[in-house]
């Protein structure tokens, strides 16, 4: 990166460190922080949307819809995360490819399952094997977002379901007495008020989501924990210009600081949001 980095062996102290910390490998490490932040930024609203649909479905007066909502929350919440991430993603990926295969290559005569192999026609592969590596990475990232959203959406659905029930029944009755339809009462009275009850639970989920991001590596996305382990490991002078011993402790210490800092900032933000939502509410702690 810097001019003087051409011959790292001659460098010492700060100069060596500045070269070491700007190698291409370290750039990948820094990039992975952005990956994790982007994942959180996209997953949180998506999971919330999944949760909202799950919760509204679970309290729907239409039985099949209600069963669907209930089944989604109870099944997904009951499966261990790691099993879900190992099994579900491969199944999801193969499901997409299978659907594309049916549409794109209807004349394909060979079986898709051959022993252990899963073979769709080359045009149906997702992404195509000719695509550049970044498309594969974006696709992996998309699968990760979807999987995280489904898992955390189920928990969010449960939180929102509880929050909707916590809104005092009198509020809805009043709305209906004013002549609002069921739908109007739901959107104008119930939804704006439920957030106050939902926020502690959702805040909790957000914290868990932050800590769950190392599961990304199971999905083939190289996250910060992967790079910390990779960079911290002992490297022999034969394979690098910057040989060093087992430095994993320092890298993991940096991750610790990152995660603690991030959760602390989140806590403050959630607290502020909570105070805002409580404003003007006719319950203890509100009204100020």
């Amino acid at each position: 990166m810097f001019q003087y980095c051409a011959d790292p062996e001659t460098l010492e102290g700060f100069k060596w460190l500045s070269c070491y910390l700007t190698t291409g490998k370290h750039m990948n490490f820094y990039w992975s922080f952005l990956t994790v932040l982007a994942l959180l930024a996209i997953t949180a609203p998506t999971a919330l949307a999944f949760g909202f649909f799950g919760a509204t479905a679970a309290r729907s007066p239409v039985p099949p819809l209600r069963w669907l909502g209930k089944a989604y929350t109870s099944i997904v919440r009951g499966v261990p995360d790691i099993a879900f991430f190992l099994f579900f993603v491969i199944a999801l990926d193969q499901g997409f490819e299978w659907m594309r295969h049916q549409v794109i290559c209807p004349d394909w005569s060979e079986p898709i399952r051959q022993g252990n192999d899963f073979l769709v026609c080359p045009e149906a592969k997702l992404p195509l094997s000719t695509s550049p590596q970044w498309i594969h990475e974006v696709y992996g990232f998309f699968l990760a977002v979807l999987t995280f959203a489904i898992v955390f959406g189920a928990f969010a659905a449960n939180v929102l379901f509880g929050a909707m029930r916590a809104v005092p029944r009198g509020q809805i009755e009043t709305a209906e007495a004013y002549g609002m339809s069921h739908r109007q009462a739901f959107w104008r009275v119930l939804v704006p008020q439920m957030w106050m009850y939902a926020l502690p639970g959702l805040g909790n989920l957000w914290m868990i989501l932050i800590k769950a991001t190392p599961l990304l590596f199971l999905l083939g996305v190289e996250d910060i924990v992967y790079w910390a382990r990779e960079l911290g490991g002992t490297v022999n002078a034969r394979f690098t210009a910057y040989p060093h011993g087992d430095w994993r402790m320092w890298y993991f210490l940096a991750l610790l600081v990152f995660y603690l800092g991030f959760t602390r900032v989140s806590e403050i933000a959630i607290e502020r949001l909570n105070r805002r939502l409580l404003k003007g509410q006719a319950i203890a702690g509100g009204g100020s």
Partner: protein
Amino acid sequence: MKKLILSTAALALSAGFALADTVRMGTEGAYAPWNFINDAGEVDGFERELGDELCKRAELECTWVTNEWDSIIPNLVSGNYDTIIAGMSITAERDEVIDFTQAYTPPDPSAYVALSADVDPAGGIVAAQAATIQAGFIAAQGWTLVEFATPEETVAAVRSGEADAVLADKSFLDTVVGSDGLVMLERMEQIGGGVGMGVRESDGELKATFDAAIQSMKDDGTLNALITKWEVASTF
């Protein structure tokens, strides 16, 4: 209309050919000198150089992908990449699930590394990477085995005293002996049947292509030169 159908058919065919020419090479990227991530953040090592040469000879376009060792076979069979080129020894057990090309390194003994030369692996705790021939060997002997997901962690376990010795490919352990008081034991284990490239069982054509390319490298001596350069194994 007929022309249109014909040209789409031609397009589909040519697309089919173009697709067949890109091969995704799956590796671990954590097993120097076989494969590792270099300072620039790219896959490097014996297998990178070998794979690129094989692809050149077979006139294939290759891209490199890293994958965790644990799930390297499942991701091959589900089609996320087309080959495994990751220092994988050819064993009967793996051969049931995937196919191997001919070996590109001869069968070499596995070695032990410990903190002192008089450690007896049979009476102690031995570390090995999970799902390797070494882990299988220790388990079969009935010794105490501790498994780790990455090669780095197996060596770290010896340094910290969690394990008495680590069993791995000699070429990998050569890169760690001498640091932190680690020494190689005299005892070696003759396990494994050489290292080959893994391909899907249904991919006979790709296997034949790489077999031919490996054979041509064996014949003109470039493979031996590459093995010597990276110090990964004995030569043919």
